[in-house]
């Protein structure tokens, strides 16, 4: 039973750590399926993390904070869209610029507003997303086997976690069952086909970039108002890039994005439980090594296990009507 409880706890933190990756991964999926590469996921999450924590701290309402986070992320998406769709700039450079902008801007504004060394005040009460206890969770708590599974693993997460997991089937349904999804996928594969079919390439791509912005906003808000209680410098910690790696690992498919981000979440969870690793392999492992695990695994997986990942064919290419 002890082993079982440990496993449940490990999976529980896997879910919590996978949530921001999943949201960011789906954000990237929408953008890249439409042919716009976005390495600015990281910057958008960071900006959203700061603004949601800051506004939640100022207003006392985490929901207003969430909206502010989404708005901040959308603003950066708009920059990316204008640079890479309207002005057909290089999408990588635009993404890099957004990452730098967010990294500097968040700390600067945080210091100006709160004077706490680039962080926001700790969030308490309604300024933070509290765990949701699902119906019957407490009643079932002591039922063997199912009890801990339901109480610890399935119940007791913030509402954003449930939203993230619900976003997976929703994304799949939008992409593969709706008109919008068909056009979105088409514009990432062959924008000329969409253009000659009488549909606006620019409109579709901006829609995709906007969805990406909203999802990144939620991901960032989750970091600072649910996973932790406040913003600290560089708190996205490369999650935007790991999400991109997961996206490639998932070959741009929604369900596979879930599996990929859960895997990366598990690596993150293992980092917090050195005791589990120790009992598994029978020797003590340096904490720093464990902390590097998700990043090391990113490199290994991308280098060796992905197989042939074919990105959307028009990805990264601004659409110019041929001469």
């Amino acid at each position, binding site marked *: 039973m002890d082993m079982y409880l440990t496993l449940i706890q490990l999976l529980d933190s896997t879910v919590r750590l996978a949530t921001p990756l999943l949201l960011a991964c789906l954000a990237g999926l929408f953008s890249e399926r439409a042919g716009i590469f976005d390495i600015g996921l990281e910057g958008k999450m960071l900006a959203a993390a700061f603004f949601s924590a800051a506004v939640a701290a100022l207003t006392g309402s985490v929901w207003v904070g969430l909206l502010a986070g989404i708005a901040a992320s959308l603003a950066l998406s708009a920059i990316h869209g204008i640079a890479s769709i309207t002005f057909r700039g290089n999408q990588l450079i635009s993404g890099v610029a957004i990452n730098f902008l967010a990294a500097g801007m968040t700390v600067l504004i945080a210091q100006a507003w709160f004077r706490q060394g680039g962080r926001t005040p700790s969030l308490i009460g309604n300024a933070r997303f509290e765990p949701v206890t699902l119906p019957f969770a407490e009643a079932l708590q002591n039922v063997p086997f199912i009890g801990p599974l339901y109480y610890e693993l399935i119940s007791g997460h913030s509402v954003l976690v449930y939203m993230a997991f619900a976003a997976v089937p929703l994304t799949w349904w939008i992409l*593969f*069952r*709706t*008109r*919008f*999804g*068909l*056009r979105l*996928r*088409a514009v990432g*594969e*062959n924008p*000329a*086909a*969409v*253009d*000659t*079919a*009488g*549909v606006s390439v620019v409109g579709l791509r901006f829609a995709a970039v906007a969805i990406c912005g909203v999802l990144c906003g939620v991901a960032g808000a989750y970091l600072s108002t649910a996973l932790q209680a406040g913003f600290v410098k560089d708190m996205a910690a490369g999650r935007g890039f790991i999400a991109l790696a997961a996206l490639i690992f998932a070959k741009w498919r929604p369900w596979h994005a879930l599996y990929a981000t859960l895997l990366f979440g598990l690596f993150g969870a293992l980092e917090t439980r050195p005791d589990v690793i120790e009992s598994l392999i029978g020797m003590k492992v340096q904490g720093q090594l464990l902390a590097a695990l998700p990043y090391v695994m990113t490199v290994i997986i991308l280098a060796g296990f992905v197989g042939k990942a074919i990105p959307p*064919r028009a990805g990264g290419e601004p659409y110019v*009507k041929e*001469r």
Partner: protein
Amino acid sequence: MTSDPAIELKGISKAFGPVQANKDISIRVMPGTIHGIIGENGAGKSTLMSILYGFYKADKGEIFVAGKKTNITDSQAAIAAGIGMVFQHFKLVENFTVLENVILGAEDGRLLKPSIAKARRTLVELAEDYGLNVEPDALVQDIGVGMQQRVEILKALYRQADILILDEPTGVLTPAEADQLFRILDRLRAEGKTIILITHKLREIMDITDTVSVMRRGEMTATVKTSETSPAELAELMVGRKVLLRVDKTPAKPGPVVLDVQNLHVKDEKGVERLRGIDLQVHAGEILGIAGVAGNGQSELLEVLGGYADGTGTITVNGESIDLSGAKSDGQSRRARGIAHVPEDRQREGLIMDFHAWENVAFGYHNDPSYRSGILMDNAAIRADTEGKMARFDVRPPDPKLAAKNFSGGNQQKIVLAREIERNPDLLLIGQPTRGVDIGAIEFIHQQIVALRDKGKAVLLVSVELDEIMALSDRIAVMFDGQIMGERLPSETDEKELGLLMAGITDTGAEHSVAEVQGNLAHVHAAEKGV
């Protein structure tokens, strides 16, 4: 013919920067007819049609559809006006199914299911009405180009198009597929549809159109009834001077064998066998033409012979064998053995487009002593040599310092040709010598190839243009699926027989259905994609 024209363009002008692509063009297309638009590459045909389809915006001019002035600002407006277009390079999403491609942009509601069901029913009807057979659930990347083209036509008809524009539709088709396309166009005309056919092939114009308009350098030079004109007259209108449509050549006087290929095999990077035991010989003073639909191994054959792909088998040149892999199998060692190569894709393999003409002339021969002074390149000598080559090959403008990309297709080809031919090779490999080249330059290039043959050199010609193969070759070998299906003499064969060989059917005496031919070709297209 008292009704309004289906399409009337008045005074259309369009410039791309300093280039005037269309100058004050007016044209009337009557309903229920097939109207041909013919002109050389770069004459402005595609630009004009892209304006009609709302893909480009005209600088000046008016468009009337069925007598009503119509403002076509984008493709959406063109579709609404009943205009459909089949582009030369298909606008299909390759990893979508046929049905998904057909409904894209013309869905019935927010959800896909009902749209797909409706499109499936409509496709069955259209297939019956016009012979437009497709596989609705196949991925576009898995079907042959003939079927891809039918998908494009279906896309237009599904959007209720009454006017259908086809841009160079037969460029990618076998003769049998082209015949089938023309039967479809015939039926569409019989149903009252109006068709605009853009082409540079005179024979297609003569075969199927009712009226023909000729374009030259952005201007409409004439519109005539097809029944009242001749290929020679149209060619003259296109080029602006009299043109020889046939290649003037004397019978070949074949000498000893120069190139001997035995049991040549080539695998691509995926391990798929692209050449499956090729045997062929080319004699001195002879042009061997390799016919075939693109993608049947012709490119690989040229690449191995030219020294930039590995193969297995035996190849001898003038009796001495050459390496097919390893350090001594590259372009440099091939050139040392007297093999010159004019590659199929001159813009990718023959030239560096951003480099000057004189630099391009030096490529491959940069170690030549006459191009060097000590350890340095003698750029002045190369430029002088280039000037001479440009004069002898009539390259226009004759400026060695112009970047390769600033020459027209025909002049680019002349630069490559001059570089290779003037080295006086024993064997010339030449792929698609006149692809994207205008009629005037075609004549010149053909003359140069024949002149080389008459000097007693061996020429291996690869072309997907059957007319070109028939006109130039002294012997014709047909390739299909990495093998030689047979050899014929041009005087003893015809396009029908070669067309069947190109589709992999060696039993050319019997009757064969179009479906059989297409079945064979689809198999090859699938293999090419590595399916």
